[in-house]
């Protein structure tokens, strides 16, 4: 059912086939019946789309414009917004806690995402072999991806990584004395990263589907030519699954930028010791809804949008170099 024949769906805008068909044979003017049908199609299309159009205008596009305006104002929800130009942005760069939040988030994205994806790929390669119990393992490994985002998982995490709890005690067995990760400003971020890595199941499933599409003959031919497992991995597996890898990198990175709930709960509804888990969205929440600085928080939201946009653009730009689409793709 699943097959990679072009780029991952995110990249394919619209259904090209029908457009080609419509502009297809003959260049002569459409007969009146066809014209009437086109008008009918337009009406039907927009009627079916109307929930989305309303949602897009009132909940996405409109709020975006409003938040752009607010980002240049001082606004506390009760008095009218007061235009202050770029002051929110200059305040932000001068704010050590804002810089801390950028640092924490970058660290979380830069460390957590690669480890999570590497784990997902390694486990997917293990599960790609046909063995008894394969589908049971696949389901079990996927489960944390669904519960990982919940408050429950964050609470359990806090219990596992706190002082004198199981992780601490296990380390003592190996002679490492660090105390609980949760109370330690240097370590709590790694407890949070461990929580995201634990949820490797979702990208794993996508990798697994990609691996199943790699033709067996390629491996057999490489083996005949004397290529070892590493060569086979770097020269066959990785290029063949690169579209899927691209999709996973893109989605996981964007999601990591937006972490909120687990960071908030793991650090006990605060920002961790010495702001060690002050992720960007926690600070945005605090500024907007605790300190009533809606303008400042909007400015923060826009910078997050710009950052995510830049990362997305860089990834799309870089894919020419490392993402291989099969013949017939775009």
């Amino acid at each position: 059912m699943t097959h990679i024949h072009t780029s991952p769906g995110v990249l394919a805008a619209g259904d090209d086939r029908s457009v080609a068909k419509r502009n297809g044979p003959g260049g002569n003017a459409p007969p009146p019946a066809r014209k009437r049908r086109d008008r009918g199609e337009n009406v039907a299309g927009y009627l079916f789309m109307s929930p989305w159009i309303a949602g897009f205008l009132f909940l996405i596009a409109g709020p975006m414009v409003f938040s752009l305006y607010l980002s240049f104002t001082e606004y506390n929800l009760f008095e009218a917004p007061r235009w202050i130009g770029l002051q929110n942005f200059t305040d932000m760069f001068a704010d050590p806690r804002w810089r801390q939040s950028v640092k924490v988030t970058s660290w979380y994205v830069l460390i957590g995402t690669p480890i999570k994806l590497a784990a997902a790929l390694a486990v997917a390669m293990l599960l790609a072999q046909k063995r008894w119990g394969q589908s049971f393992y696949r389901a079990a490994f996927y489960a944390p991806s669904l519960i990982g985002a919940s408050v429950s998982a964050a609470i359990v995490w806090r219990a596992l990584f706190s002082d004198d709890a199981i992780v601490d005690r296990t380390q003592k067995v190996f002679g490492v004395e660090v105390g609980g990760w949760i109370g330690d400003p240097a370590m709590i971020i790694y407890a949070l990263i461990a929580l995201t890595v634990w949820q490797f199941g979702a990208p794993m499933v996508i990798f697994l589907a990609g691996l199943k599409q790699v033709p067996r003959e390629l491996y057999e031919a490489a083996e005949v030519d004397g290529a070892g497992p590493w060569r086979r991995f770097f020269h066959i597996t990785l290029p063949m699954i690169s579209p899927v890898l691209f999709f996973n990198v893109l989605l996981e990175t964007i999601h990591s930028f937006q972490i909120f709930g687990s960071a908030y709960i793991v650090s006990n509804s605060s920002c961790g010791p010495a702001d060690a888990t002050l992720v960007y969205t926690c600070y945005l929440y605090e500024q907007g809804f605790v300190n009533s600085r809606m303008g400042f928080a909007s400015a923060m939201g826009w910078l997050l949008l710009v950052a995510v946009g830049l990362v997305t653009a860089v990834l799309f730009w870089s894919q020419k170099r490392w993402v291989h689409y099969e013949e017939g793709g775009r």
Partner: protein
Amino acid sequence: MSLLTASVRRRGPGALAWHLGALVILAVVLYPVVWTIGASFKPSADIIGGLDLFPADPIGDNYARLTEGIADIPISTFFLNSAYIAVGSVVGVVLSCSLTAYAFAKVRFAGRNIMFAIMIGTLLLPYHVLIIPQYVLFQKLELINTFTPLLIGKYLATDAFFVFLMVQFMRGLPKELDEAARLDGCGHLRTYWSIVMPLCRPALVTSAIFTFINAWNDFMGPLLYLNEPDKYTVSLGLKMFIDQDAVADYGGMVAMSLVALLPVLAFFVAFQRYLIDGMATSGLKG
């Protein structure tokens, strides 16, 4: 023993290594869940610090305490609120996203490609750029502390991921089916409802289950919009629980965490095939 060695010899040493590897990963992945189940039957004092996975003599006190509720609110209130929001979200997503997806996949209207590109763009949009203005909007409409802000987006197809999933699925349906329906004089509404929707059941079920679980787990939305404890969802109830008993009541906290997860775990066990296939499909196909 001889049976084991025989089967290993037959399948080669690779099989043994494979199963060992898979079991080690299984242990790591399921440990937190199993630990939670064990801890929920331990006295609070033994939860942190004790190394046993399961208590020597299990107690039910932690669960008994939950029947007292949290801050004078019975936990059934939180469950009913969460269930209301989750079921309401499912209905909204299934209806609105499928209508939108039908238009993208089956109707040839002007501007379709550009709108599809915009819709995909919203998939990448960080939600946090919208929370301030949306909050202001719902505050002006006096909808704070109602469930409306949490539900309205579901009825307006703002969950682009599910639209995308359904478009992918609808494009995979044989074109002949809906073309035949059109020739037989079915309008789009009829084709949508009687032909495409029944055939899309796997995509709809996948979206429905994901929506339910996401709504159930959601923390930021309820945190922003609900401010009276009798409107709280399970996530907020849990937070309230840990806020009021930060250190003392580990037992109740763990028990409540587990109870809060039950619907998600039940859905997962029942529908894991759909969820996993749906996830896999989203990364593939052009």
